[in-house]
């Protein structure tokens, strides 16, 4: 309930970690507050994954070929759908302004927000993916690589998406956000789905997974700085 500051009784020095911790705690509490929300996010993923076969037809061979692509595209769309909420309400109600004025560094606060966003929207998908993959007839190895790929890929999606969300602040244009973000998402999608395909064809997914890891690290360094810069521009 009370911040670390209060629990220690004194007022600690501001810092990037403290800022990030504040943001994670606050945003996770907000996400958990509407109890249904996390479950609903997951249900959306499940429904999209079952929806695409409906549009495509019931041929099992076709479905098996589609599996990895569909699971990845659905993860990507779930991430995309959750993006506008990342900064928009904080912008509208003045929280972002207060964050910029707080003694904590802004990139730290924003990293915290992104982390909370991934924990609330990305992690459940990663956890559910093996089960859903089973429905498409994927084998054990493929399921492991699918989950591993999503574990590396979905945080990257959240990080890249945060930059787009910050850039479109105040524009109320979900489609513009999607347009900015999707080109950045495409490589993640290609390597993620590619990794599963690679195991299936017996080639090993080391290459694709390394690339996903490299992408994650790069985004981890760059995205919070870029998003913070975009936020500063938006509130000026």
């Amino acid at each position: 309930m009370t911040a670390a500051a209060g629990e220690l009784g004194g007022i600690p020095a501001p810092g990037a970690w403290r800022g990030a911790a504040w943001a994670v705690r606050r945003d996770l509490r907000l996400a958990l507050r509407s109890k249904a929300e996390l479950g609903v996010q997951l249900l959306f993923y499940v429904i999209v994954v079952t929806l695409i076969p409906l549009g495509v037809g019931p041929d099992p061979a076709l479905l098996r070929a589609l599996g990895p692509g569909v699971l990845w595209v659905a993860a990507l769309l779930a991430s995309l759908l959750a993006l506008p909420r990342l900064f928009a309400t904080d912008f509208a109600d003045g929280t972002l302004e207060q964050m910029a004025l707080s003694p904590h560094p802004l990139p730290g606060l924003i990293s915290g927000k992104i982390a909370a966003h991934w924990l609330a929207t990305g992690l459940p998908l990663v956890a559910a993916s093996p089960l859903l993959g089973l429905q498409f007839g994927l084998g054990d190895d493929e399921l492991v690589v699918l989950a591993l790929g999503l574990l590396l890929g979905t945080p990257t999606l959240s990080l890249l998406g945060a930059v787009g969300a910050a850039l479109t602040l105040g524009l109320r244009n979900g489609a513009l956000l999607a347009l900015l973000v999707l080109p950045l998402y495409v490589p993640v999608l290609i390597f993620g789905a590619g990794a599963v395909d690679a195991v299936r064809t017996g080639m090993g997914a080391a290459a694709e997974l390394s690339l996903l890891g490299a992408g994650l690290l790069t985004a981890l360094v760059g995205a919070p700085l870029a998003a913070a810069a975009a936020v500063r521009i938006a509130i000026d």
Partner: protein
Amino acid sequence: MLESKQLAAQRGAATLFSGVDFKLAPGDALLVTGANGSGKTTLLRIAAGLSHAVRGTLSWRGAAVAPLDPELRAAVMYIGHAAALKDELTAEENLASLASLHNGVATSDAVRGALASWSLERQRALPSRALSMGQRRRIGLARLTLVPRPLWILDEPAAALDTAGVALLCDMLGAHLAQGGMAIIATHQDIGLSGPSVRGLTLS
């Protein structure tokens, strides 16, 4: 300690104001008045380090400061029109969260005390969505008691407050100034603050 020299602000093609000079020493308050649209909010945001001025300089403790300067950020508390409240959180959670964002005291006792001093005990556990306009503003102002900052910048703090609330605000401001604090306040209505260290600035 906060000083402006020849500040000017422009919006679109229109210059809102120019040549604004002010100087706030500890204990000083600046009451900014002016017609609607004369640039009060704009001036306050520049003083808080949120916006750029097109001309002129702002300095804090003698050093010129750019927007979002860390020194200034550590010293200022800006309360604007938006109360930074989350609809889903309770009044108490909102206040504690904002106080700890600004590195203030956020113990449960302190937060309840602050709520009580703004007569919000009964609303403590209500989601902020349910609060009335004036109650929302009160939570915003309660932050001032939890986060010690030398410089308060308040944009129409009395809007939506009832008479008791305005009196409380005036008391708080008086105490703050007496302790060597500084304040810049934009307002349309008389909030009862007076004294030798209270200066006015009218934009036109």
